[in-house]
């Protein structure tokens, strides 16, 4: 849920767009990070631990802790808390640790 009014702040969210989370269409705004847009849609589980498969969410939301790694447009280990969402972006829960591309 997004805040519609606030006693101190006004929000400039940019343009409304749609993107995909695990194939599901989600609403976002161009000035939002992927994590914020997912959170606004009620999605808190962003990934899972490698060994036990325990659910994982964000922790710091400013790019320090790496708890929010996801696969974005095929690129693994993207910190979605500091990456802005774009129209048509494909955001997916990551399987495994990701592979470094050689290009």
């Amino acid at each position, binding site marked *: *849920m*997004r*805040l519609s009014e*606030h*006693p*101190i*702040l006004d*929000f400039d*969210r940019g343009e409304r767009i749609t993107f995909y989370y695990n194939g599901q269409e989600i609403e976002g705004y161009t000035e*939002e*990070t992927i*994590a*914020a847009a997912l*959170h*606004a849609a009620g999605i*808190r*589980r*962003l990934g899972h*631990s490698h060994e036990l498969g*325990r*659910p*994982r*969410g*964000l*922790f*710091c*939301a*400013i*790019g*320090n*802790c790496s708890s929010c790694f996801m696969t974005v447009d095929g690129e693994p280990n993207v910190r979605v*808390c*500091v990456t*802005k969402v774009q129209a048509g972006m494909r955001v997916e829960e990551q399987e495994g640790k990701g592979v470094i591309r050689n290009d």
Partner: protein
Amino acid sequence: MIRDVEVLVIGGGPAGLCAAAAAASLGAHVLICERDYVPGGQLVKQTHKFFGSEKQYAGDRGIAIGRRLIEEAHQNPNIEVLTEATVIGIYEDGIVTVFHRNQHIKIRPKRTIITTGASEKFLAFPGNDLPGIYGAGAVQTLMNVAGVKPAEKVLMVGAGNIGLIVSYQLLQAGVEVVGIVEAAPRIGGYLVHASKIRRAGVPILTGHTVKEAYGKDKLEGVIVCKLDEKFQQISGTEQDIPCDTLCLAVGLTPLTELCWQAGCEMAFIRELSGHVPLVDENLETTVPGIYAAGDVSGIEEASSAMVEGRLAGYAAAGSLGYEPEKAHERREAAAAELSELRSGPTGEKILAGLEKTAAKLAARKGEAKGC
């Protein structure tokens, strides 16, 4: 290609922006590297009014102070702000490498001021990895920067300034705060913040801690319990608190990776909240030409970070030959401001920490002479 820079400021938060403004005011050319899309650091989410004196813009909201500092940086022809620019290395030959929008840049600065700030600490308890357990600063980012309602029902851990302030801001965003749990027997943050949320009906449970968190795919509730005077959990005092979010405001730790990498001598100083670079009265580290200011050299209030930034900026520009007399004068004035901010009971801890770093530095100099 290597780019030559007079003063490189790493991190565009309150300390970095003030360091840049100070150095630029004396005539030095400054490049600020900021990893985020916008400079301002954590000021961009501080909706409360700042303490201190008018020299640190006291009475103004953190966001307004941030806007002012950013505006000043953008208008100053001696300052260039590079955003989406993460400094990833400081090498022995003085080269600094930066990852900037998928490009690798090399910089050769004459002076470097490290103002990388801090990160939030974590807390050990069963279930602490569940989605819905967030740093208090993270929740602040979600609600105050993105404008996303971060939760319906929050339990806050930590009654320091961050825990108290974020609790208040959660109320402002229309979120229910069920309480604040604090392990210490007393409130650590400013009591005016505590009174503000208490009179809004939020209880503060001192001498309590989180025993465990539970939930299937995300947080559903938290078991809290009382602590004895030795901080041991008292069995039989458990309380089950249903909530969808647990905020951890259990302190910050300096973000010192670049200091370590640059070879700055480091020391663990409890009062400064972790490993910090040893700095002298100019905030210069043991690596000549590299300065550290703000939370990276010890966790303190943003008002102090701003003054530290200015102090380092004047010292760095002065050492490059820019108006040395004026630089000295202004450095002294900044030092006096810091002394004033730290002169009361709330400054005792930081002063104790700084005394320890000074002693370590002195011992180091003594050893060097001995060789």
